[in-house]
């Protein structure tokens, strides 16, 4: 009996010590813990481990070789790369910010809600002192700034648009991409008759479903500066009939387009949509000037083109400018010097040129990289006064934009356009009121 009690007491004490040890004491952040693990990382001979978080597509699949190259050149720094599916990257960042486990370098999108959260929590480093930031033009540095500080090394800039298969459009008599909505829908009808789809996109990427509305809002903003200002500042009075009409047209066109959209687009991962496009099942893919490399990799023989969504007449249509995602540095990193070395190397002109080559995206650094031939028209678009800086995730708050996509999908399956509009307006006003 005595032995049993003694054993119980010893076990209990051991457990208590274990629990208290696990729970108490170290109130450091995750990144600080990472640092503690490698304390003295800066000392010669010790290896520092940097954690880097990004989505699968950010480096178009060449991240492993880049990291290998970096580690070979910097034997004292080890990169612990965490690559996640595209649809989960910002959710992951959101969790890391909440739990104070932000990696040393991490993917952000300048307009995304999580970037603001990271900034509010003090995790967004000012990159103005990083040498590689000088490679970007001033306009790009401004476009990727928050609170006046450059906050990310963007992988590129460009426009949201439609990648298209030239051969498939030629099959329905189009030697040039369609210039009007009617011609676009006509192409859809003809392709459907041949058992093919006009359009494919990826609903799993939450914000993508609302993308058609970028052109709905953008083309109206081209002709109405007051609307543009209200839109960018999230103060649209949707009770105005002319503004309500924008929504109505957007919803109706979304529904019309979905007659020729590949089944599965509402629940697809983007990789599935890319695959359907690359295999010639769909003629057009909702895309941007950052996908060329990935698409050519999937089908090197495809004659790839890139067009603006023909939402409005060509001379009134908007071009949707998007600063691409990039890497930010953790302002609370335990290894700020090593993080700086890594990011400076990653976004040096030489490394950035390699990334651009793999991605086929539109360069954000003057004089670096070659323009993919499918994007030859894009520089001329950027010369016009019809550029709308409606990044993929703004200015409408993320959850309201996702709701817009959901209401538009609901309308596609069943429902009443007026009800869909009312639902969106209620959601918009509710979010803005908060």
């Amino acid at each position, binding site marked *: 009996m005595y032995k049993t009690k003694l054993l119980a007491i010893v076990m209990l004490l051991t457990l208590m010590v274990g629990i208290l040890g696990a729970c108490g004491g170290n109130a450091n952040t995750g990144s600080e813990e990472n640092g503690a693990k490698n304390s003295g990382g800066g000392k010669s001979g010790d290896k520092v481990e940097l954690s880097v978080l990004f989505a699968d597509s950010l480096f178009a699949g060449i991240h492993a070789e880049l990291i290998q190259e970096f580690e070979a050149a910097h034997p004292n720094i080890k990169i612990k790369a965490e690559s996640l599916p595209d649809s989960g990257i910002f959710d992951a960042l959101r969790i890391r910010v909440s739990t104070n486990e932000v990696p040393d370098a991490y993917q952000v999108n300048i307009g995304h*809600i999580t970037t603001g959260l990271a900034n509010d929590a003090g995790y967004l480093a000012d990159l103005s002192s990083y040498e590689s930031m000088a490679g970007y033009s001033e306009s790009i540095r401004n476009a990727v700034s928050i609170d006046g500080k450059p906050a990310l090394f963007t992988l590129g800039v460009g426009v949201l648009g439609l990648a298209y298969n030239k051969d498939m459009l030629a099959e329905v008599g189009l030697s040039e991409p369609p210039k009007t909505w009617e011609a676009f829908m006509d192409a859809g009808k003809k392709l459907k008759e041949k058992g093919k789809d006009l359009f494919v996109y990826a609903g799993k990427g939450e914000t993508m479903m609302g993308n058609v509305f970028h052109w709905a809002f953008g083309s109206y903003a081209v002709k109405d500066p007051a609307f543009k200002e209200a839109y960018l500042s999230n103060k649209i009075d949707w009770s105005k009939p002319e503004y309500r009409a924008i929504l109505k047209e957007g919803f109706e066109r979304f529904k019309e387009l979905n007659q020729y959209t590949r089944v599965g687009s*509402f*629940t697809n991962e983007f990789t599935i949509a890319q695959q359907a496009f690359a295999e010639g099942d769909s003629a057009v893919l909702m895309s941007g000037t950052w996908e060329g490399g990935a698409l050519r990799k999937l089908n090197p023989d495809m004659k790839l083109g890139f067009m603006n969504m023909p939402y409005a007449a060509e001379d009134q249509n908007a071009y949707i400018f998007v600063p691409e995602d990039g890497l930010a540095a953790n302002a609370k990193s335990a290894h700020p010097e090593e993080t700086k070395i890594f990011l400076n190397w990653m976004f040096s002109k030489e490394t950035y040129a390699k990334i651009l080559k793999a991605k086929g995206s539109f360069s954000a650094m003057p004089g670096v990289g070659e323009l993919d031939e499918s994007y030859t028209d894009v520089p001329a678009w950027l010369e016009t006064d019809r550029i709308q800086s409606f990044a993929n995730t703004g200015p409408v708050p993320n959850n309201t934009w*996702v709701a817009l996509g959901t209401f538009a*999908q*609901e309308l596609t399956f*069943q429902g009443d356009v007026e009800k869909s509009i009312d639902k969106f307006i209620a959601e918009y006003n509710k979010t803005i009121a908060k």
Partner: protein
Amino acid sequence: MQKRMFITGIFFVAPITIILAIFLFFPILQSVYYSFTDWKGVGGYSFVGFSNYLDIFNDESFTNALKRTLLIGIAAAVLTNLCGLLFALMLDQALKTKSLLRALFYIPNVIPIVVAAFVWRYMLDANSGLLNEWLSKLTGDRIAIPWIDSPDYVVYSIIAITVWQMWGPIMIIYLAALQGIPQDMKEATMIDGASKWRRFISLTLPMIAPGITVNVLIGLANGLRIFDLPFALTGGGPAGSSETLAVKIYRYAFSSTELSLGLASSFVLTICAMVVTFFFIAISRQYEKGVM
């Protein structure tokens, strides 16, 4: 002596009590507290009373997700049990392939659900999925049913996959219960001339009643908290038609900055799960009392 026993008992109970208090009760209470605030997961917060609860019940997508989750939970519990019991009855016979079948029925539960979701995504794809291909060959017509791409089908597809995934462990519990029925009782009912159906109703079912309670609770719990399958299979789409309460909680908490709404929704889910569970336990106890 009794006091000593009591103190010893306390010592033995203390470790798990402390662990539960730290890792379960405290976080639950903290979550309930935060559900009455406007905390976004980062930074400060203020007390907002029942405002979050009012907000979620005014949100149509939340109430739809709640109804959908209850449907999935109840349907999954019923169907998983029917399938599990059927397979267990099959395997309780003198079959040569018993071991092989048992392994085959159990395999779906071993596959990680996210992996299973991706496999099912290819199986159920409307354009080139195997299921439509088989149906097309069977009927001679081109079948392109949007199993996971239409609000009309997606919930039923999710229920079916959940049942497929869960019937293994349920079957094993039933099989153990069936094998626990004394042989002499089985023989007595046969000598009395009872038909197979009568033997099942009057002997088998009452004898495995505790197993039914456990299995239905397992089925309900799995159905009500379902997250990974719809999230990996459809992301909650199309048009939010496969968004379960757990997915909705995730959306509130992580896709937007409304963590406090997510916490309020979690509390509602917990209450629903408890109500459904206690209701079922009450019914099953009555049944067990009545028949045993």
